């Protein structure tokens, strides 16, 4: 009898056991894709629409250019000196609640946007404070010894000075070139290098977008995609721009694992300068396809105010973070005189 009773009790415990977690507390709400409002007694996990911030600020990165410490040579050549420090032990919140070991140049992914004018003499003081060998390999034209491939810079304070003349005109990536290469790139050792033409470009509201991905579980597939590292950031923090104002975006695709990426703009088309090496646009389109480290310059003007999406039209990427919004403010008297270009 006792046996039977204990069996009965045991069985009922097993039946009830999996349905334990039913706590009651105050209701929270969140909005879905379709605008439906959902109420929950629990926690909302919504990196898409809920405004949230993490350690890295993509809004600050967007329009930040590092022109270096400027000096002049006797012959009038501008010398620009930069310091870049590599680290590989930082754990960063890359999406709300998700922590990932990023390898950084100057503490951020992407690293600082290095900007110079064609013909300037560049001196990049590189310090490796990481625990592995690292280098900086610039895309562009430079002597073999400055290529950052065969000159591994040792960990724990190793130093190297990359010295070369800025060129050619355009937008280029720089990244670590130590083997295993894929690992060094996908952890975040990359950034943008802009070479301005001597005669300058038309004044514009300029921004940098590095299209990148994060493989947070190391299965050689990206778990997140983004413009400037943080998924969905520009969706819940729209980029504010004005009507009748020239917008210029320096786009660099650093996505690994997936062969292509792309950039689609809503309610508008852009002039596209592949690699930015030519001053005449090659395309007038709302869609470009980019392979690894493929990059270029986009220019466009919005006529109508409002909210416009921009995202990968490889929709998988946009649904995993590579999506943003331009919030176009009405600016009837366009005033381009107070806008700057280069320096």
């Amino acid at each position: 009898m006792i046996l039977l009773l204990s069996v009965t009790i045991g069985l009922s415990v097993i039946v009830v056991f999996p349905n334990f977690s039913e706590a009651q507390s105050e209701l929270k709400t969140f909005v879905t894709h379709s605008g439906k409002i959902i109420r929950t007694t629990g926690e909302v996990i919504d990196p898409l629409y809920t405004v949230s911030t993490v350690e890295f600020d993509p809004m600050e990165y967007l329009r930040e250019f590092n022109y270096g410490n400027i000096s002049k040579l006797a012959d009038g050549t501008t010398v620009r000196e930069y310091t870049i420090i590599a680290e590989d032990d930082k754990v960063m919140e890359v999406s709300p609640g998700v922590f990932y070991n990023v390898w950084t140049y100057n503490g951020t992914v992407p690293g600082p946007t290095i900007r110079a004018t064609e013909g300037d003499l560049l001196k990049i003081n590189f310090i490796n404070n990481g625990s592995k060998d690292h280098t900086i390999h610039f895309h562009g034209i430079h002597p073999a010894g400055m290529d950052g491939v065969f000159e591994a810079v040792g960990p724990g304070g190793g130093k190297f000075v990359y010295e070369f003349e800025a060129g050619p005109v355009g937008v280029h990536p720089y990244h670590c070139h130590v083997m295993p290469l894929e690992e060094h790139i996908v952890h975040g050792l990359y950034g943008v290098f802009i070479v301005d033409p001597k005669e300058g470009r038309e004044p514009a509201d300029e921004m940098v977008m590095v299209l990148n991905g994060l493989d947070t579980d190391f299965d050689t597939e990206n778990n997140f995609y983004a413009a400037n590292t943080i998924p969905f950031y520009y969706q819940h923090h729209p980029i504010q721009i004005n009507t009748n104002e020239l917008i210029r975006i320096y786009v660099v695709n650093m996505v690994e694992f997936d062969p292509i990426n792309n950039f689609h703009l809503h309610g508008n088309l852009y002039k596209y300068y592949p690699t930015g090496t030519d001053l005449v646009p090659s395309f007038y389109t709302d869609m470009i396809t980019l392979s690894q480290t493929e990059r270029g310059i986009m220019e466009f003007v919005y006529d109508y105010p409002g909210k416009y999406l921009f995202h990968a039209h490889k929709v998988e990427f946009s649904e995993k973070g590579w999506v943003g919004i331009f919030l176009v403010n009405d600016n009837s008297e366009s005033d381009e005189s107070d806008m700057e270009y280069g320096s």
Partner: protein
Amino acid sequence: MAVSETSKFKVAATGVIPFAFVIVMMLYIFGPGADLLDFGVALPEVTIEKVDFIDSEIQATVRNTGPIPVQIAIADVNDRIQPAAVEPDGFLDRYETALVRIPFEWNEAEPYRIGITIDDGTRFEKEIESAAFALEFTSDLVIFFAIIGTYVGIIPVMIGLLWLPFIRRISKSKYHFFLALTVGLLLFLGIDAIEEAIEVSNENLAGSFNGILLTATVVVISFIGLYYAGQKLIDRADSSKLTKPVAIALMIAIGIGLHNFGEGLAIGAAVGLGSIAFSTFLIVGFALHNTTEGIAIAGPLSKDKTLSKKSLITKLIGFGLIAGSPAIFGAWIGGFSYSPFSSVIFLAIGAGAIFQVIVVILRLIREEGDKNLSGSSVVAGIAIGMLVMYLTSILV
């Protein structure tokens, strides 16, 4: 007196001392400041145990099955990130569960992969072959399951019991053949239940549950427990109103009842998971199988010549209900509150019960005269029983 007290104390002390050392060792290993064994990296793990599709929403039951606490950070459907809610909250201690609610306009009968990403960026996934509405607890469904349970459990067992007059009239060796046939049938069912339990645990339970060992443990405990209880019942039969054959038949009925509970669970779960066609097959298959279970009960009962006709009929109906009706309860639980863990447990209990019934029947055959269980009728019976089940299992 004093001497015996001291010796009792000594016995107790010698029993307790090793335990004391075990506790000291545990304290040493896990105690504060003891980082002796603190090396290696503990990898987090969560398991999505269950996915329910309800109106415009997908709900996933997530359990932390790893060695360290985790925080649920992101939910996705088909590897596309979705806004979601996690109740009661996203922080999961070891073995804690949470319900992740993902608002999603899903389409019926399409496959879905539900993913959960935790704080360290690791993503875990569960694939659902075909989305279907989760069953809601309505009186219609309760009746529906009761009818299915009746078809699968009660009716086939009752039909099987109708063989009783036939078994009564046949010769001893033919009777042995039928008993052995049941052994073969039940052996197949027992192995089948174990396979099913292992399959469910592999697909739905985390590795930390040790699915195969869990199944083995429950099978053995179920077997031993029922064996013990059954023996008590038979022993008592001498002193009570029950005759020995009736006691054995009752035991077999209880064992088969436990097994049918597991079968009911499987059917309810199949309906709940939306594989309706699959469950139609299941129902036909189970109904065929279960007819044979009636024979198993009828066998020993037929040896009791003392029973009056009326009393025999009441007993047949009673045993039929004991053996068959658990299928109804199983279907209710499987359909309305399916949990892979309880499924594995019940399937294993059922398997243990089946093996217990097998032992009882074999013993009956031995007592009836075939001491080595090597008579041609016994050997042929077991072999044909297995073969019949295998062939019908291909058909269904």
